């Protein structure tokens, strides 16, 4: 949760407050952009543009508590715009990205098996339609509540429920089918 006073300071054009805001929100924003674009460099470009828009338009934000959903909206909008402009989804090998999990605690066999499962899941996620993938990323990576997702994506609560369910179902079906 972002401090309301920090938002108020950014509204006044305080650059050090803005710097603090960027520091606090950058990884969350990056995860969302990366979830859509699947490319860390593209995600970083989008995030930079998103922060510029935040700085120029934050005065329009009446309720500081709405910052999270407002910021997410900007990132989602820019990410889709960016991917439309590029007209493709670039992929990067999994070994090129920094891994958060401590996979080396496992034996080599389990490690390979886990890596294969991860790759299958990543591929299945990429095959999901945009509106299903983004909702799953908000829920599973950023732990958004259904209400927050509904406000961020401007869709009814019932649609959030059904999209999350169908996204999971599609993923499970794709993983069961295998051969992705």
């Amino acid at each position: 949760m972002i401090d309301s006073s920090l938002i108020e300071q950014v509204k006044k054009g305080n650059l050090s407050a803005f710097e603090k805001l960027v520091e606090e929100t950058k990884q969350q924003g990056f995860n969302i952009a990366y979830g859509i674009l699947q490319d860390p460099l593209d995600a970083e470009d989008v995030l930079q543009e998103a922060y510029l828009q935040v700085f120029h338009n934050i005065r329009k934000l009446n309720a500081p508590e709405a910052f999270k959903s407002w910021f997410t909206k900007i990132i989602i909008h820019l990410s889709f715009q960016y991917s439309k402009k590029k007209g493709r989804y670039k992929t990067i090998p999994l070994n090129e990205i920094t891994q958060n999990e401590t996979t080396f605690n496992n034996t080599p066999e389990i490690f390979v098996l886990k890596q294969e499962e991860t790759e299958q899941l990543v591929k299945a996620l990429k095959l999901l339609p945009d509106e299903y993938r983004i909702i799953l990323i908000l829920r599973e990576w950023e732990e958004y509540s259904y209400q927050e997702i509904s406000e961020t994506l401007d869709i009814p609560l019932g649609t959030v429920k059904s999209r999350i369910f169908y996204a999971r179902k599609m993923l499970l079906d794709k993983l069961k089918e295998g051969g992705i």
Partner: protein
Amino acid sequence: MNKCACHEIDISTYLDGELSPELSNIIEKHLQTCSKCKEALHQMQSLSKSIQELPRPLISSSITMKVLDLLQKEKNGEIFFVNLFKLWGILSLCAIGIILVSFGSILFNLVYVFFKNLLIVLNSIVKLSQQIPMAPPNLIFAAIFITIGILSLYGFGYLYFTIFKKELVS
């Protein structure tokens, strides 16, 4: 969908802790007896865990500096254009002054001729329109022309503001 009373969509919502307490109780009781739903919950749970554990790249630490640099560059650019416009304003005032002093009388005559002819044209249009009978088809045409006129005025205004106002997400 399962053949039992429970829907898989409710199991997904239950997994996320987004069901009402009453519905959650019903699902919990149902899960004790229905192996199919229990299996569905288990599958969704492990899928959810796998997604959460997916490796994600870490954002580069330099992003904050990059954003601040971009803001600074923007600001410098803005200052340059503001100065340019200020300079342009002074220059254009000087140019208008020189033109007015040198060719003032010719310009006045040109403007006078233009407005005189404009008045003549407008006068003829009004006279012509008075000769047209007030029949319903003519009134309909007039209404259509007035509507088109208003809409095009609105259209030009909208176009002007869209071009000159930077469209941003709000």
